[in-house]
């Protein structure tokens, strides 16, 4: 279940920044990747609500720290009380779990951690949409009252991704993704994700404005009752302390 949280972070960050040129689909897709790569440090306070079939609804509040250049991130839980101080540190392919009640660390690999959930490698890796996908302009559509570009992306041959087919609905005005659907190879719909709220921010590292999503709603289309709501209460793109992505820093923070 933490894997789902982590997966959400992946989505959150990989789609975070969109600055694009309008009609040219290729350019649009390429710029998603481009903006992704150039992002600096990132910090947010997120609220997550996970609904699962036959299970009680879970709520979390957590701090997320991310430094893409080093491929590192931290998730530090703040609420509820029973989860307070639990932390995940990702360094390279390892994820370390900190349990404050024990004062102990546990190392697992990404693969092991994610195994058995609907999270995918692509949720964590850098966005390589232009490199990995062929794209196709489907048409101009309306999503609610917003005019959107509907794009269809299918994976290039020889490349292994979790969802070989993606559909994107991009806001014409702001060029933000408002809706995304993931499909399997047989074009079975796997999940639908909405990004209904965006915030325009200034990134010092990029020296330009970027858009960050403030709310994400994920619906599992296979397990129909499973859904996740993510609300980003606070976001900051300011540089983080240099030594933040260490066990010692988390231990100190989680006292």
């Amino acid at each position, binding site marked *: 279940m933490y894997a789902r949280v982590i997966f959400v972070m992946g989505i959150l960050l990989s789609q975070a920044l969109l600055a694009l040129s309008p009609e040219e689909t290729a350019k649009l897709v390429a710029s998603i990747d481009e903006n992704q790569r150039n992002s600096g440090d990132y910090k947010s306070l997120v609220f997550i609500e996970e609904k699962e079939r036959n299970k009680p609804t*879970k709520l979390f509040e957590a701090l997320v720290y991310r430094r893409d250049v080093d491929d590192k991130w931290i998730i530090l839980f*703040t609420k509820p009380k029973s989860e307070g101080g639990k932390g995940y540190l990702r360094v390279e392919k390892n994820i370390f779990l900190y349990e404050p009640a024990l004062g102990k660390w546990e190392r697992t690999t990404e693969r092991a951690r994610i195994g058995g959930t609907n999270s995918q490698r692509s949720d964590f890796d850098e966005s390589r949409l232009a490199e990995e996908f062929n794209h196709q302009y489907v048409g101009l559509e309306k999503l609610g009252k917003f005019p959107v570009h509907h794009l269809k992306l299918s994976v290039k041959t020889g490349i292994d991704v979790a969802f070989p087919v993606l559909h994107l609905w991009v806001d014409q005005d702001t060029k933000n993704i408002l809706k995304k659907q993931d499909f399997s190879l047989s074009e079975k719909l796997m999940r639908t994700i909405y990004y209904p709220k965006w*915030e325009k*921010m200034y990134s010092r590292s990029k020296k330009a404005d970027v858009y960050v999503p403030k709310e994400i709603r994920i619906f599992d289309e296979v397990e129909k009752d499973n859904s996740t709501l993510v609300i980003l209460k606070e976001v900051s793109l*300011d540089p983080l302390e240099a030594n933040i992505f260490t066990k010692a820093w988390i231990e100190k923070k989680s006292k």
Partner: protein
Amino acid sequence: MRILSLLRILSRLALRDLWLRKIKTLGMGGILAMGTFLIVFGLSLLEDIEGTMKNGIIQSVAGHLQLYSKNAKDSLALFGGGFMGREDLAEIPDYSKILPSLLDHPNVAKVIPMGFEMALLGRGNESDELFDSLREALTSGDTEEIRSREEQVKFHLNFLSKEFEQGKKITADQKLLAQQTSWIAEAASDRFWLDIRLGPENKMQFLETKIAPLSGEKSPVYLRYLGTDPQLFQNAFSKFKIVSGEMIPEGKRGMLLASRFREDFLKILPARKFDMIYRKKIETGLSIATDAELKRIQRELALQHRPILTHLDFYETERLRGELVGYLEERKEHPGGSSDSLEDLLKRFLVVDDSNFLSRYNWFYEHIAPLVRLYEISPGQTIVLRSYTKSGYVKNVPVKVYGTYSFEGLERSDIAGQFNITDLVTFRELYGLMTEEALQELTDIRKTVNTQEIAKENIEAALFEGEPVVSHEPDAFSSSTFVDPQITAAKGLAEDYRPEALRQGLIINTAIFLRDESKLVDTQKELEKRISDLVPVNVIDWKKASGIVGQFIEIIRYVLLFGVSVILLVALIIINNSMIVATFERTQEIGTMRAFGAQKGFIAGLFLIEAFLLSLFASGVGTLAAWGATVWLKSVGIPAVHDVLVFLFSGSRLFPNVNETYMIAGPLIVVVLASISALYPALLAASIPPALAMQENE
């Protein structure tokens, strides 16, 4: 008197006739004897097994009765049935509400609260363990400790680098391998260790993130545990015994590992393989050369030098190497020079065959086992259990292992030896039912975030019809005002608890011991009614509670009875048939007897007595054989060659008892049945007219 003398003649004639038809008599008698043997021996053996099994079940964990919530979606199966799944047994929210009422029943002697669940036993690989110790040493600042840990890590790195050297030949991804080899080289370099005490964090992170994954991943171990009142449990269940370490002290949170579980899952692999071969080869008597399964284990054992090396106290490596050279040279199994590495020697040592196995096995336990950490977990250690709680959140709970236990006689049973015992306080923490308080907290969080519940059906309208989707940061160029909230780390559970806690609060089920077992059925009904007035519950007997194994005995009984019925049916058909044939063969003889004044009853009696004597004799032989077999087996015992048998026998051997009831009932049944089957031929013979004596049969 006349009847008696008639009977005498009849018996004499019948006996003579049976004697004359020896082959037929032997055949029929044999089948009848076998049938009797099966009835007497089989049924009485079954009764013995049922007795031992019952005792085993009641006295290990079931008690006479088990009580659990009626809201349970699954039925209680103490020894499995639901297999590794988590059964949903619901819960009894407050034990203190039902306990007085239970104890109030005149036939209730003891009540033991319980709860079964599963947790994941977290564990890293060998590298993780070594690096953890090093990190701890560095934090503590103990120079001696740091040096010792350092050397251990270096030894391990050296070992890893050798392994990767060998890996070159077989690895496809040479680029990755080269990179990994360079990491190991860097970690093993003097430069790396020079200033480790000054800036440990980066170095440790290097080891933990780059080196640790190279040792591979351990598969997680699922640990089934029983939460109870440990002291009460110990007093109530006579088969419970501590194997190593000590009992969980009163008022302390703790765990007793099931000895069998520890052997099966927490022992280092080479030792486990040695044990497996020992069991199959020495105890069961199979041979490595011919048994495919054994051969497979033998091949696996041959590859197990690595766990020995990594678990070896590294100060002991040179000594072990010397001893191993001595051992192998003595047996002329050491063609290499004495300069061979310990690794090479171990590889050679672990190749066992039928002739050297016992020697290797003994040497392993005498010389190698004391130098390695034989078990991953030992008494005194604190382990961390991870459970997926009922509230949905994951909980990691530390619990100290005080000792290991097993059930008397069931030491070798995998069925009975798979749950570990802990206190109810730890159990409840791991079970993690959502509390009112926690629920309120979630509601509060939701309120502060002000989330909107939107159904998927109309989500697009709800999300994209209203406000513009983009908001602007008020001052794009200023620094963020975002300050990290204060984090309050969740407190761990204390090591002590109040003893009253065991008598109140959540439980899943209880074992109930009765004063008078013969009133079990009545008490079961009474308790179910009495407690259901407070909380709806099921009360089931030990047999049902034991799950599928408890019903196993019934299945065997039906199979046996079916077998006996078939055998007896065949015997009776044969008797019937051959006697009908005999009446035709003996027509003249019967006619002659009739001519000389034998009444019809006499002729019928002749046939009946023949069947009677035959069945009496045959069933006597069968009964005697069953008695002999039982007496013999009582002296030597029946070995439990399979795990299920260990459970059924409640020990490694069963010593059956002579059962008088079956010794009388068995032959009686056979004689009555045989006599009945002779009835028709007897009447047929009696109806032969005397005039047939005169008929010539040429």
